[in-house]
């Protein structure tokens, strides 16, 4: 279990980069440190306790990787392939994803709260017990996925499809939905209002 160490720079609330005392913005060589982290992710298919908060990654393929207890919060990911990945108890909150694929991935106990997703594909995935609070998603697909106990409360969803999904115990409370499709999904088992007590 990684610990949330905060950057030593005064007034900075970002998390430290892996093995560093400062965040990716305040380490001595930000570019070199980011490159080193990307290389580390590319070289290993099984990553555990990795802290890569604030990282920017473009045009990379991490398909088939396992991310266990990793921290990618406040990152920026463009055209990154996470398909068939195994993501467990990992943190991507306040990150931006553009043209990223999570197809056929297995995601559980992970946090994507406050993320922005554009043109992302989560089709054919198991995305259970995961937190999508307050996300902004545009042109995204979750088709044929199991979203059991995942939470989209306060999200803003535009042109997002949840076709043929398992939505049992999935929360959409307080969400804005425009052109969202739940075709063939058990949306009657999802929560759209705060009606069920804990």
């Amino acid at each position, binding site marked *: 279990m990684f610990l949330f160490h905060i950057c030593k720079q005064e007034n900075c609330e970002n998390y430290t980069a892996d093995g560093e005392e400062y965040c990716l913005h305040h380490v001595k060589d930000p570019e070199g440190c980011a490159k080193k982290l990307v290389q580390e992710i590319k070289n290993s298919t099984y990553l555990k306790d990795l802290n890569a908060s604030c990282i920017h990654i473009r045009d990379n393929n991490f398909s088939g990787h396992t991310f266990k207890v990793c921290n990618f919060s406040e990152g920026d990911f463009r055209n990154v392939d996470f398909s068939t990945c195994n993501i467990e108890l990992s943190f991507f*909150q306040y990150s931006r994803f553009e043209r990223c694929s999570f197809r056929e991935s297995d995601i559980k106990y992970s946090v994507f709260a406050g993320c922005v997703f554009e043109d992302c594909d989560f089709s054919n995935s198991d995305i259970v*017990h995961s937190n999508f609070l307050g996300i902004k998603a545009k042109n995204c697909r979750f088709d044929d996925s199991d979203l059991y106990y995942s939470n989209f*409360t306060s999200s803003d969803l535009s042109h997002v499809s949840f076709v043929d999904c398992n939505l049992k115990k999935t929360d959409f409370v307080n969400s804005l939905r425009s052109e969202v499709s739940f075709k063939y999904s058990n949306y009657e088992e999802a929560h759209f209002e705060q009606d069920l007590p804990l």
Partner: protein
Amino acid sequence: MKLYFHFAVVGFANTYLIGPPDGGDAILVDPGIMDAELLNLIEGNHYYIRSILVTHHHNSHVKGIRTLRKIYDADIYAFHPYLIDFPTIPIKDGDLFNCASDIEVEVMEVPGHSPDSLVFHIGGMIFTGDVLAAGRVGSTKNSFSRAILLRSISEKLFHLPDSTLVLPGHGPPSTLKAEKMYNPDLKLLNTDFDQSGPSS
């Protein structure tokens, strides 16, 4: 310190196993059920359950204790002095103690969902039981209890760092910052918070 999740299909509740990286004495938070899967998780990682922390007395959080106590000689830490016929080590707001493998636990009373609701602060994590979950706060019997719950959350939890990991009794994990920003039940408590998030 290592953290493991276990999902109990009875009551749809989360149980958390916390212990040192290489096995040894460990803590269980809210054992809602004791099944073969949880036993494998404990034994497979070479743990011995020395302490059981109970956030509140509801069945989906304590039902596994009977079976657990037949296997492990574990101390039960709870608000009440007795829990399903077992004596406990009663704990209250502000208590700070070390239990299994010297792991430090801070206790916060956050009543409202139930009078005995406790939150455990361990490292950068809070185990919130039914006080606070991703996107919602615990149910209450009336508006008075709800007011108490919201005030207690504000007073006891909001001063913790935003990066604090929220591990609820039900549903996915979260962070305190995400709850302050997006939990509709908490928005009224937190009107000054920056809700801009990443630019779209």
